[in-house]
């Protein structure tokens, strides 16, 4: 999108008044979305963004600015204004830009811009029909397809540069089930860094059935019990608890700000021995994967917790320098309008040895939490709350009646120590993670796990 020579010129302009680091980030995005509701296409929208983000450091301070353009004159003007914020005596200069080399390779078969809007409409109509055919109780289906093709170029005053083309496809399905006065909802998302082949082979319809299943099953739900009880958390989206209640505390910026319970815990036991947790931005086609992070560093796998011992934090360039640790390729940003920070990618608890069905059998009275509506965490303490959207009672080792209105409340680091069993059925679920006003693509993941005790909040009886 821009010449390397021009990138060097901008980097040097940014350094002129003494900044200790400079960076240019160029991004072009073509997005499209199609939304179905009431069995017809309600809205079809396309968008185009093209711009340039500029970043410099002056000591510990970061200065950031952007322009909605990649015209050379506008970028240079913005670089002069931003550089002017620094009045120091440094004499840094960029020589040659050397391209970073990522080992991550992808093949995209069906680029979104080659798929007609009519074709996308067919997929959504099929999702709608599948959901409504699933049960007469399904009274509303909201489904949307969003796709994005983007091109990124990054260069910095360390002499690094990188470029990447990204394709993202997302299908989300929300259904409403109604029976007499009982009303329930079901939600599922499929999202990959892939073209429209992601939605082939009946995968869109499968998603519609899964969302419908949740809503219909939950029509029979009884009030959730209350109390401090054993909880088995299902695979895939169950990993959201680790993401929210532990993962954010492992992001190095919160550690550096003394706002993490994991500060000073490197090399120490933070979880039960059966827990190994990993952040891996290079799992092919996963939603949180990329060739280069938002600072141009190559993607890869970072073990965070190994057999219960904390071994790594999640770093961006700035935090890795401050912590004197290697970069982990986790500097991410929402777009050229945003300054990067340490963020998770695909973050998961690794497979253990236990068979999921034997985990359920080991619980006399407790609950099985399969899907969550999301949650919230107090990062400084790790206190969390998660709403269960699909959950069941476990009685005498068997999954029993579905429960409604259930919430899990606890403390992330505390729960890590109470994990008694880890299954061998690792799976992932895609989503978006918000932090500091920026939203980035993420996957959470885990096998089935058992926690000895978590507080369950509901309106039912004490279990």
């Amino acid at each position, binding site marked *: 999108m821009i010449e390397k020579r021009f990138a060097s010129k901008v980097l040097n302009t940014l350094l002129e008044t003494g900044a200790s680091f400079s960076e240019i980030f160029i991004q072009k995005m073509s997005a499209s979305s*199609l939304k179905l509701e009431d069995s*017809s*296409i*309600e*809205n*079809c*929208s*396309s*968008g*185009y*963004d*093209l*711009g340039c983000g500029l970043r410099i450091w002056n*000591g*510990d*301070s*970061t*200065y*950031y*600015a*952007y322009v*909605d353009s990649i015209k050379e004159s506008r970028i240079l003007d913005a670089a002069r204004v931003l550089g002017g914020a620094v009045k120091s005596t440094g004499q840094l200069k960029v020589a040659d830009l050397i391209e970073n080399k990522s080992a991550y390779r992808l093949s995209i078969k069906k680029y979104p811009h080659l798929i007609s*809007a*009519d074709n*996308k409409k067919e997929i959504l109509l099929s999702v709608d029909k599948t959901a409504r055919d699933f049960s007469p109780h399904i*009274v*509303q289906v909201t489904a949307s397809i969003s796709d994005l093709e983007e091109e990124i170029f990054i260069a910095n005053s360390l002499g690094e540069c990188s470029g990447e083309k990204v394709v993202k496809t997302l299908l989300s399905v929300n259904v*409403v089930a109604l029976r007499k006065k009982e*009303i*329930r*909802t079901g939600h599922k998302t499929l999202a990959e860094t892939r073209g429209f082949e992601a939605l082939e082979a009946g995968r869109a319809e499968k998603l519609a059935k899964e969302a419908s299943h949740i809503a219909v099953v939950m029509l029979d739900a009884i009030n*959730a019990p*209350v*109390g401090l009880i054993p909880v088995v958390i299902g695979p895939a989206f169950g990993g959201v608890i680790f993401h929210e209640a532990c993962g954010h505390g492992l992001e190095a910026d919160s550690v550096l*700000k*003394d*706002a993490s319970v994991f500060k000073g815990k490197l090399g120490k036991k933070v979880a039960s021995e059966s827990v190994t947790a990993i952040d891996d931005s290079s799992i092919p086609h996963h939603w949180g994967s990329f060739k280069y992070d938002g600072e141009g560093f190559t993607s890869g796998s970072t073990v965070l917790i190994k057999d219960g011992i904390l071994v790594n934090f999640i770093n961006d360039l700035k935090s890795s320098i401050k912590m004197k640790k290697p970069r982990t390729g986790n500097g991410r940003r929402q777009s050229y309008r945003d300054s990067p920070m340490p963020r998770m990618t695909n973050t998961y608890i690794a497979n253990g040895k236990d068979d999921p069905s034997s985990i359920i059998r080991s619980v006399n009275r407790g609950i099985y939490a399969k899907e969550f*509506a*999301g*949650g*919230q*965490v*107090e*990062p*400084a*303490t790790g*206190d*969390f*709350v*998660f*709403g269960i959207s699909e959950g069941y009672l476990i009685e005498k080792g068997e999954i029993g009646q579905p429960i*409604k*209105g259930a*919430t899990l*409340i*606890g*403390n992330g680091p505390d729960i890590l120590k109470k994990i008694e069993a880890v299954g061998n059925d690792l799976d992932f679920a895609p989503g978006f993670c918000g932090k500091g006003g920026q939203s980035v693509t993420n996957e959470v993941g885990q096998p089935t796990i058992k926690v000895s005790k978590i*507080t369950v*909040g509901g*309106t039912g009886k004490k279990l």
Partner: protein
Amino acid sequence: MEYKNKNKAGGHGSKNKHLLDICKKAALMMPKGRIDQFELFAASHTGSEIEVFNGKVDTLSSSDSAGLGVRVFKDKAMGYAYTAVLEDAVIEDTIEKSIANSSVSKRDQFNYLPEPGDFRFSLPEMGEGDLFDSRFMEYKISSKIGMALRLEELTRKMDPRIKGVRYSIYEDGISDTVILNSNGLCEGCISSVAVIYVSAISKDSKDTSTGDYFDYGRGPAGLDVETVASEAARRSVELLGGKKIKSQVLDIVLEPLIAAQLLGVLAPALCADAVIKGKSLFKDMQGQKVFPSFIDVFDHGTMPGGLYSRPFDGEGAYRGKTTVFGKGILKTFLHNTYTARRSGTSSTGNASRASYRSVPEVGPSNFYIGPGSDDMESIFKGIDKGFYVTDIIGLHSGTNPISGQMSVGARGRLIEKGSLSYPVREVTIATDILTFAASILKTGKDVKFMPGGGFFGSPALLVGGISVSGK
């Protein structure tokens, strides 16, 4: 056609004129024969965000962006496209995309541009000063940095147990909006906002706690750094050593800002689009009693001092004050012109538009429960055992505006014999929204507001017989 701004809250600044010029230019590019109607929505935002840490600037970001959204109607089908690049060739391409997008969308007899007969309210009396602080420009970036630094320093000094500040942030912005359509509608406005917020971390020998607070205004002048610092510190320290209580049914008191957040989660269920699609717990409930008779709920799109006040909404309809619940009875849902036509009513001026990237939907503006008559003392008096909720987490994931179920995490203080007792943490409160609404026993005198997808306000609420689960 001549396009001229009618309202008095904008259209005079240079940015606004620039946006109007872009819209006029795009209007000339519209291929008239291939579409029936069009609407152009241009918006710009300039702002700065300053986060400080340990007495230094951590990050200073400045933003300056603008974009254009194009909405077209052809045979009662709608198409949309937007661009952040405002060059002629790109605008032309965006227009073409919006037309192509209309070809796959549903045809719907109610799908056409707003017309004056759709509006419930007439041109509001708002001047430029209502939305824009003219002193904004007098503030240099260095004094904004100074404000964030002082907020951090003051917060740290408030109490010896404050061991850190998780963030201390100053953020501001000026937004310009112009909307113009082929029916001759043309409105523009300019607004400014400045916010400060801080999160204080306190520690004692056993426990860690956080407390957040904020202030906002049309400009940096008048932001109350001292109060924000002391409130954040107080909220943090006050909950140190919180205990999990036994699961039980208690009367609970929600402090105003917590009740306001809860109202914010309810608001989408009162928007007509959710109701029409069967995605609201309030569907079929118009005319029914939901709250006790002493409660009124308003959406006031032109409220003086309201952060979400504007003379017109996201499709140019004028705004005003709507009684959503009157004496506890659900009077009306919130409408844009499309949902109003479908429901046989007029637009309440609630077409919401997050940015030029999105089509007008329906959303609340300044949305609040009216004040009651009790001060805090008389609310607490008479509670033998209760729970004063001062922090709530997992509100969005724990509340389902379709089914009405609600189960959220809470922190606060126990109430014993009418006065505040020890701090409580890691418990959940669970109910369903209709039971909760009907169980309100008292409302406080002071309404407090907070922004987030609307500007939500409430007095303190005393609610009887809520299930609290702990250990």
